[in-house]
């Protein structure tokens, strides 16, 4: 079980990690600033295994891969949204952060609710409610299963 951190629609990657931190030398130095503009307490209150849940078009804007990377570094287990912006979606799979499309979850949960994601079954459970997720395209599922694009490249080599 993990706690839900709930965000609205069109959350852009500047909100996930602002520009002024992107040239810090490492992701670990950036991660304490995650979601600083929307929830300054996020980085200190999120625990490994927690979830980010959002409305439509999560991760729009900049192609900065630092955005999914800081979420992963903080231990976020998955991002579940009604839809994702293209580059964020691809970046997340590439670094091995599950991004799950679920049309019904956002409108039926509150921040702080406990949820459980079953990746194999493609279901999410919150209390006595169960939600069905859209499965990943085959090629992306394969990359995710191998731990990301670089892990899959290293495996080929």
């Amino acid at each position, binding site marked *: 079980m993990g706690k839900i951190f709930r965000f609205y629609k*069109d959350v852009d990657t500047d909100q996930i990690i602002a520009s002024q931190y992107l040239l810090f030398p490492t992701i670990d130095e950036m991660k304490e600033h995650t979601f600083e503009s929307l929830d300054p307490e996020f980085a200190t209150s999120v625990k490994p295994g927690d979830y980010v849940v959002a409305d439509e078009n999560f991760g729009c804007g900049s*192609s900065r*891969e630092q955005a999914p990377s800081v979420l992963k570094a903080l231990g976020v287990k998955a991002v579940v949204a009604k839809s994702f912006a293209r*580059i964020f979606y691809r970046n997340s799979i590439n670094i091995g952060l599950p991004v799950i499309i679920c049309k019904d979850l956002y409108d039926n949960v509150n921040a702080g609710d406990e949820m459980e994601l079953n990746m194999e079954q493609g279901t999410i459970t919150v209390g006595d409610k169960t939600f069905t997720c859209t499965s990943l395209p085959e*090629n992306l599922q394969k990359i995710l299963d191998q731990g990301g694009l670089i892990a899959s490249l290293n495996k080929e080599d």
Partner: protein
Amino acid sequence: MGMTIAEKIIARAAGKETVKAGDIHTVTLDLLMSNDGTSHLTVDKYNALKNPRIADVNKLVWIVDHNLPCDSVKTAASHKKMRDFAIEKGIRFYEGEGVCHQVMLEKHVLPGQLIFGADSHTCAYGALGAFGTGVGNTDYLYAMVTGTSWVLVPETIRINLTGNLPKGVYARDLILTIIGKISANGANYKAMEFGGEGLKNIDMAGRISICNLCVEAGAKTALMAVDDVARAFLKDNNRDGDIVESDVFDADSDATYAQVIDIDLSTVKPIVAKPHFVDNVCDAKDVAGIKIDEAFLGSCNNGRIEDLRVGAAIIKGKKVAPNVRFLVVPASRTVYEQALSEGLLATFMEAGAIVMNPNCSVCWGACQGVIGEGETLISTGTRNFKGRAGHRESFVYLASAATVTASAIKGEIATEDMV
């Protein structure tokens, strides 16, 4: 079945006769652009590879433009990592030459190419008939190592333009109008293809401005057919001889589109995008009078010579309003030198503007011109997200070079006919 421009370019890069939207293909990339926003992380990931290698170093272009000149010791370390790696590997490397997309368009991009850029505004290259798309640094690294990547062939939204933009209305107003119409994810996963008789009336700077901003509607890429205007741009940059005629594509008349939008350019008005979303647009007149603290003329969207000419013509003989900072930032060294020789920079300086070196400046919100708590910026930059230009409780309005310059003179949002 006919193909869109996006389909034709992917077919060429995949070595196929035809492709269609929804297909996934392995493609060979023509160019790979990376800037200082993520290159230091790419280097770290490269060094951790089991079998590090570069498929074709001649396709790589690395450009420092986001935090230039360097703003801190931490940035200096990241820049040094990027610079040392580029020099060691023999990667084409620019520092001080300009904003990455302007440098790419002036020196490298050619019609029909498939280009990955580790920057979302790579879609600007469509103005020269190239398929540019933004990627993260892991996708970039994979392409750098293997020379290839996978792409999902996008559906295309066709935008047909007719007529002419009225006086005082610019390409920037047109693309903000379109983004307002289709919304911030209206083109998610799709290509946006522009054509029609009206496109002939839009200059190269306007075309780049249009293509550049398509990612703000979620677009994977933006494309325009190559015509005399695009060829003249390449000739001006001494690159017309590099065009591969078989790679110059236009859409087939029976191509399939997800959506077709017709726009009569004569109906477009000056537009402003209000905080904190690019699709949050309104007529500029509706927000006229809002006090500003800073104005910015520059960026990969509107830092070209044509934009500086527009701004200089408006501000000539006038002054920047008291207590307003007006930042003028040419998009490249070439633009800077041209503006210098035309006397435009002197005009801005005499008016009290701050003229700065070519770089991303406050559009990126982490280097020059950052705004403080409660402050308001009007900008030709690409984005107005919350905190984009500095403090998280600050406000960014987006507009054309003309509206930004007029606002700098008035000290409040204004269109060029109001000064």
